[in-house]
């Protein structure tokens, strides 16, 4: 067994008598089962001092079971490129030229490329197209040395394997850091703290720790000496990130609290249900983040407010799909601002017809269609996200209002009239619900599973709007609605 393998602990050997043994261990979650690289390939040129720092995080007595060993894979030149944003001025023509040459479009473009000149010439594509022929959407001259496997589970159906680009993946870190800087967050490497905790809340999950490429001593400044978590001057060293599973069945709460207190992550990133777990008193008392980043799922206004109130820091809500990379962001409950990166958002109606913005830049509500040029291994043109919303202008730039996930459905009233679930979202948020899962049954009645807030009050308003029976199932935490991406709205039939 190699040194790397030996450091990954065995789930069948519990560290304490009280820790539950995994009852079901999926093959991929067996520690080390996906290890294929050497550490030199994971972290090219990692200095001994930096390695010591990484090993200290990995070897902490309260550390979780590390189920994966994973790195950024970038050598110095790749790190430098990842720290540099791709120029986004007039990026679309070049992007369309790349897309036009994709094997997937061969039949459409004609012998002289006349078939696909402008954005409007490109057909809408969807997850189904990627599932059927993802390789056809990878440019013929792509640098496969930078290809790694990305997996997108989506809300329904089988996971989709996607080609991720190592530099693009690392570039996302620098994008998040820039967005936080715009919110006044001074995020500098501090070797005494974990730079980033990426938190999940699942029965089983990949857990790992890795230096963040380029986030190292050269950008260190003095830390805030007044803060209880940052006494003294910052020490030089690499920023380390760790992916942590907050599920108590996977990581005892006492260990979670001890580890977080010891490593005091500067920024905590996660999906809403895992961020909600941070609000548990012992856990909340152990951390003092500079900022919180939410992604993957709908962050409700009450949960944002609770996080802001508890930690007193900005909460960045990032909207994106694995296929497209980050699309838009907000730090309040207003519309999501479309990023100034290589991304363009349009809106289509149910028939797939594009809805042109009016003179004020606003569109009717429809499906969000994204043209994305961040990932050089997967240049997308007019990709149907399955998510719904409408375009508006915010501070003179495009933004997405009323964003609803790909589970978007209309509910119906007792009279059969359609009701947009955006209205229901409003009621639920007003009642302080942190998360919910509403199902309208065939007979029209609604089962409302609601985490947090005044569930009976929300149910009364839903009943008043729909005129159908509403059965309430109040649960204490968002995670109690289920792992992964529980549907917020489902209509049976």
């Amino acid at each position, binding site marked *: 067994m190699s040194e790397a393998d030996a450091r990954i602990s065995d789930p069948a050997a519990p560290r304490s008598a009280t820790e539950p043994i995994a009852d079901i261990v999926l093959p991929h979650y067996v520690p080390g089962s996906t290890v294929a690289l050497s550490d030199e390939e994971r972290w090219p040129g990692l200095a001994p001092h930096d390695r010591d720092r990484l090993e200290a995080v990995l070897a902490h007595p309260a550390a979780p079971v590390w189920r994966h060993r994973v790195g950024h894979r970038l050598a110095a030149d790749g790190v430098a490129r990842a720290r540099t944003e791709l120029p986004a001025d007039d990026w679309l023509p070049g992007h369309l030229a790349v897309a036009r040459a994709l094997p997937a479009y*061969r039949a459409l473009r004609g012998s002289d490329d006349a078939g696909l000149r402008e954005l409007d010439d490109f057909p809408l594509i969807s997850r189904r197209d990627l599932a059927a022929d993802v*390789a056809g959407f990878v440019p013929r001259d792509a640098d496969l040395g930078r290809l*790694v496997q990305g997996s997108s589970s989506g809300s329904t159906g089988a996971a989709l394997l996607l080609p991720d680009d190592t530099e693009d993946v690392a570039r996302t870190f620098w994008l998040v850091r820039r967005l936080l800087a715009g919110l006044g967050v001074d995020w500098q490497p501090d070797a005494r703290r974990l730079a980033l905790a990426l938190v999940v809340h699942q029965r089983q999950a990949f857990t790992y720790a890795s230096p963040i490429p380029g986030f190292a001593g050269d950008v260190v400044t003095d830390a805030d000496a007044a803060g209880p978590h940052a006494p003294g001057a910052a020490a030089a060293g690499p920023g380390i990130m760790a992916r942590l599973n907050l599920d108590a069945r996977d990581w005892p709460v006492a260990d979670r609290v001890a580890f977080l207190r010891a490593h005091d992550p500067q920024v905590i990133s*996660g999906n809403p249900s895992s961020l909600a777990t941070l609000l548990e008193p012992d856990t909340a008392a152990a951390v003092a983040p500079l900022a919180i980043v939410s992604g993957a799922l709908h962050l409700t206004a009450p949960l944002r407010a609770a996080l802001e109130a508890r930690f007193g820091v900005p909460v960045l809500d990032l909207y994106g799909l694995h296929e497209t990379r980050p699309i838009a962001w907000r730090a309040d409950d207003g519309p999501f601002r479309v990023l100034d990166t290589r991304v363009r958002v349009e809106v289509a109606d149910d028939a797939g017809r594009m809805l042109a913005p009016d003179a004020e830049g606003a569109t009717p509500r429809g499906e969000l269609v994204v043209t994305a040029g961040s990932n050089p291994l997967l240049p997308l043109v007019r990709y149907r996200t399955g998510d719904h919303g409408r375009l508006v202008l915010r501070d003179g730039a495009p933004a997405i209002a009323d964003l609803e996930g790909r589970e978007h459905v209309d509910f119906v009233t007792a009279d059969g009239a359609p009701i947009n679930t955006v209205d229901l979202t409003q009621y639920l948020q007003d009642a302080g619900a942190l998360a919910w899962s509403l199902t309208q049954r065939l007979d029209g009645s609604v089962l409302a599973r609601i985490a947090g807030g005044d569930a009976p009050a929300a149910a009364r308003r839903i009943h008043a709007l729909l005129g159908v029976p509403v059965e309430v199932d109040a649960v204490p935490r968002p995670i109690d609605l289920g792992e992964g991406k529980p549907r917020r709205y489902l209509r049976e039939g």
Partner: protein
Amino acid sequence: MTDRPDPRPAGGGLGDQPLRRWFDLRLDEVRVWDALAPGPSLDVVQTRLSSAPQAFLADAVSLVALAGDVLAGAPDHVRASAAAIAAEAQPDPASRQGAALALWLWASDELLEPFDPPLDARWAHSSIGALAFRLAPVAPPRRWLSDDDTREEAARLFLLWSGRLPAGEDVPTARARWERRDSLARDAALRELVADEEHRRRIQAALAEKRAAEAAARYSHE
């Protein structure tokens, strides 16, 4: 397309194939359309192709000797180029027959009757090279005699590389009709499709590799 011999060596690329020799002649397939003069009718050329004597298609024919006889009155540099093409075409049956049929068309000018308007012997070598190395590898010359579409393709290619438009056609018309018949263009598209498939297999294999499966550290949820 399946009944055509595949001019491509296994593993992609043209390698040392007849088609490679056509590209090696470095003739400009775009600019040639700017240099055309009115020529004889397509029917006349097709009829003459059909009436090619079996002697021209015989395995034993010496192309270099045949070219020397047929092009005796041509300029020196044309005869030299034609001789080089003939020598290269000799070992490959399809190219040999293609070159021989081109030589037959030039010979028919004297053996049957002159083309009207006349051809220009300064174009002889390029027309022989085109039939030997551009068409024969993707459409066997026996088919030029038996199949109407292929015969038309051969006649159009011969006229084009003889610097002539088919009688009654202007350049856009002739070009459009040629492109509809062009086996190589269609075969190039096929070649691109094959390259696309190779690319897809390469990507799928790369995605499935254990190295790729180890993924890369991520920093946010999408």
